[in-house]
């Protein structure tokens, strides 16, 4: 279980990015974090993956404090960040340097098969399309079998079709080992398609504002009325978090729960 206890972050220049974030994420749960720009959602993710340290509060995975990158926590960035001097298969196997060459080759081959990049195994990253590169990046993060996978707006740079494609793909990959997914996004539909829970942050400083449970069975039909209803609830919470009230809020808040 991932536990955030009053996590706060004040940057050296005095900007208060996060304040009092307390949350528990159960194993295998998918949580989407959404919020307006400057709400600290990326800051939060960077603290959880150990790249940056929170300035107050604590983060713990299975009781172990996270202060630096941890082997049980994987990360997918907004850009693929493949190493341009390594082939696709070497990139996917990058985190497996503790395995023997044979074991690594085996794991990489299976991972490439799962993300549909077998024929690109020996290609250079530059030869991949944006969607292929991001799939390789997801494979790279999943190959060491992390307990928690963090995704920082992983599909935001992709076109709409590829994005929907990769969202479904991510869910299929998640089904295999059921890691905890913590996903930062600014796309309401993406949050509702993927997550068990959508957490809305409020900006300046970043605080928890609201939480919407998405209790729709998977695979989720993006066109169903129930889906629309939950989407609406998230959007209205987002609006309220930005003080842009345009809906009677109360009716929507629990809309997802009754379904």
């Amino acid at each position, binding site marked *: 279980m991932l536990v955030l206890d009053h996590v706060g972050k004040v940057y050296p220049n005095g900007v208060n990015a996060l304040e009092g974030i307390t949350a528990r994420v159960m194993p295998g749960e998918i949580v989407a974090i959404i919020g307006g720009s400057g709400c600290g959602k990326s800051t939060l993710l960077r603290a959880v*993956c150990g*790249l940056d340290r929170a300035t107050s509060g604590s983060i713990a995975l299975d009781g172990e404090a996270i202060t*630096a*990158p*941890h*082997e049980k926590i*994987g*990360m997918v*960035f907004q*850009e693929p*960040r493949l*190493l*341009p*001097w*390594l082939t696709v298969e070497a990139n996917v196997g*990058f*985190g497996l*340097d503790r395995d023997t060459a044979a074991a690594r080759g085996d794991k990489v081959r299976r991972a490439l098969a799962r993300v549909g990049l077998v024929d690109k195994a020996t290609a*250079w990253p*530059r*030869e991949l399309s944006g969607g292929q590169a991001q799939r390789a990046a997801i494979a790279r993060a999943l190959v060491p079998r992390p307990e928690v996978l963090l995704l920082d707006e992983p599909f935001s740079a992709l076109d709409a079709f590829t994005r929907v494609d990769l969202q479904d793909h991510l869910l299929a990959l998640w089904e295999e080992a059921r890691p905890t997914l913590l996903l930062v996004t600014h796309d309401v539909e993406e949050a509702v398609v993927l997550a068990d829970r959508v957490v809305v942050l409020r900006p300046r400083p970043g605080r928890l504002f609201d939480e919407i449970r998405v209790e729709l069975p998977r695979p989720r039909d993006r066109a169903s009325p129930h889906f629309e209803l939950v989407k609406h609830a998230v959007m209205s919470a987002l609006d309220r978090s930005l003080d842009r009230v345009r809906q009677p809020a109360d009716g929507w808040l629990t809309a997802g729960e009754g379904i």
Partner: protein
Amino acid sequence: MSLQPSACQTSVASGADAPPAATRAPRRWSIVTTPWLGLVLPLGVALLWELAVAVGLSSGRLVPPPSRIIVTLAELARSGELARHIGATLYRVGFGFLLGTVAGTLLGAVAGYWSLARRILDPTLQALRAIPSIAWVPLFILWLGIFEPSKIALIAVGVFFPIYLGVMGAILAVDRKIVEVGRIFRLSGVAMIRRILLPAVLPAYVVSLRAGLGLGWMFVVAAEFMGASEGLGYLLIDGQQLGKPAQIVAAIIVFALLGKATDWLVERLTAPLLRWQDSFSTTGTG
């Protein structure tokens, strides 16, 4: 000859309008023909000069015709002189290049990787860089004597700066985002250098090696002007003092060939390390 549609087809059919077909030719044609086109001017001038001297328009004493240069080269080669001079020059460039590269790489790496070292080292080195390297010559001669050490030191100084700057700049320019990938996978300091920093720095390093080598060839001439008894630079001075312009031009041509050859060698030797880079130009056009 032309694959151009409409506009050129008429000219091809008429068979006479060569200029429009040439200027509007598809790209791959111009790529094929351009290097040969570039030879037309120098070869044409050489040929004209040869003819001018042959028919007696000029004695060719100060500006020797190509045939005389070739004869000079052949004589130097037959007597074994040429090999001796080339050997001496290559030895100096090689040794100086090696020293300059080692020093430039080490200090550049330290200054790039460690900001405290950069703040201590860099201002001094930048100040030294502002000194024209030839200005060191009298001091080097006083310190190291007139023979090889002072020459090699001068070449090493010339090679040092582009490599130092190249390595330091390349390390500073390594993408923080790629470094974070290494951190996420919990690479140790050594592994981070080996698996992230070194490959990331390599393309810029090769460029700085080639720039350094070019300066090495430049400074070997200066070094050999200061009292050498052999070397291609000596051939230049000797040709000037004894009034043998053909020998000067011959030495210049050998310099050009050697400079190009060693540059090509560095390029070939490093090409396998940079395969991931040029894959872009060969296959990434789509």
